[in-house]
């Protein structure tokens, strides 16, 4: 009775896009935008850069939709593209930040760091701890624990082996605990 929203599958939307229906791609963008955006923001640490990486991933995916072997797993395929874009954009942003710190006389020194963190909330402390992880450890931790992907899926998306991924996640957990303890947030 009444009106019921019918969820169209990824496979059906991909089929429509391949048939020339661009609007169907808009539905895929809306479906994955926020979830993938969360990954990009946490991975890169800068919202503007994250949006650039995400936009780039969506456009590249559209241009290469014929290469999506299993349209029913469009989301996983899109994750793979985004992970690569985040690596590229993240590396560029990291170089830019290093340059910025070197060129800025007022950059905070290490001794002031703890005080600074004290003034920030728990949310900022988590983001700062996350940003201190090595990119490959941060990537594995986010995909496993935040995006909730299985190790097999993460291996496909990142190209890394499962045992290496488990080690990265373990290191990330240990380092996050240490960084937050250093910041006296636990």
């Amino acid at each position: 009775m009444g009106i019921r929203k019918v969820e169209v599958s990824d496979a059906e939307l991909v089929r429509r896009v391949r048939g020339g229906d661009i609007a169907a791609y808009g539905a895929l963008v809306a479906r994955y935008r926020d979830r993938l955006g969360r990954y990009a923001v946490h991975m890169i640490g800068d919202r503007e850069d994250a949006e650039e990486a995400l936009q780039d991933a969506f456009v590249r995916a559209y241009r290469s939709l014929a290469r999506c072997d299993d349209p029913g797993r469009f989301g996983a395929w899109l994750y793979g593209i985004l992970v690569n874009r985040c690596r590229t954009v993240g590396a560029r942003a990291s170089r830019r930040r290093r340059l910025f710190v070197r060129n800025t006389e007022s950059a905070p020194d290490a001794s002031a760091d703890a005080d600074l963190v004290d003034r920030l909330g728990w949310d900022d402390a988590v983001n700062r701890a996350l940003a201190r992880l090595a990119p490959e450890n941060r990537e594995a931790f986010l995909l496993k624990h935040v995006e909730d992907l299985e190790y097999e899926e993460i291996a496909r998306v990142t190209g890394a082996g499962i045992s290496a991924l488990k080690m990265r996640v373990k290191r990330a957990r240990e380092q996050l605990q240490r960084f937050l303890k250093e910041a006296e947030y636990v």
Partner: protein
Amino acid sequence: MFEHADSEIIERVIRQLRKPVAMDSGFDARVMREIAADTEVSRPRLRLGRWPWLAAAALFAALLIAHPWSQRADVRPDYQFVLVAPNAASVALVGDFNDWNPARSPMRATRAGIWATVVPLAPGRYHYAFLVNGVEWRRDPAAPAALDDDFGSPSSVVTVVGKGS
């Protein structure tokens, strides 16, 4: 006890990081604008055709033959791509140069399962692959594999060197 406390810290971190992160309200429009502009230029019609089973594998040598017929600088030289696939019902060349659209560069069987097509290429570095029977991606066995591919399917790289470079 410490282990339990550590685990609680991580659980708290995960809860924090799982909170929704909303993208900018104009995000979808920006993506769709870029795609629409793309479509205006190239009109992609991505059709993969039917999904028949691929018969026995038949990947072997491929040839990349340049035809520098034209000496005019404003004309892109043609390059012939060849794949040996005796059991294939159809083969298409897809790559950066045709928006990975199989409809734009179908290959023709010349003889004994040798598939070929010719495309004009300006100087540059291109990723490409062969789409066999509309479903199977093959990289070119005679060309370097693309190591920096974003899409998880096999592809190859060809570099076209410009005049004077």
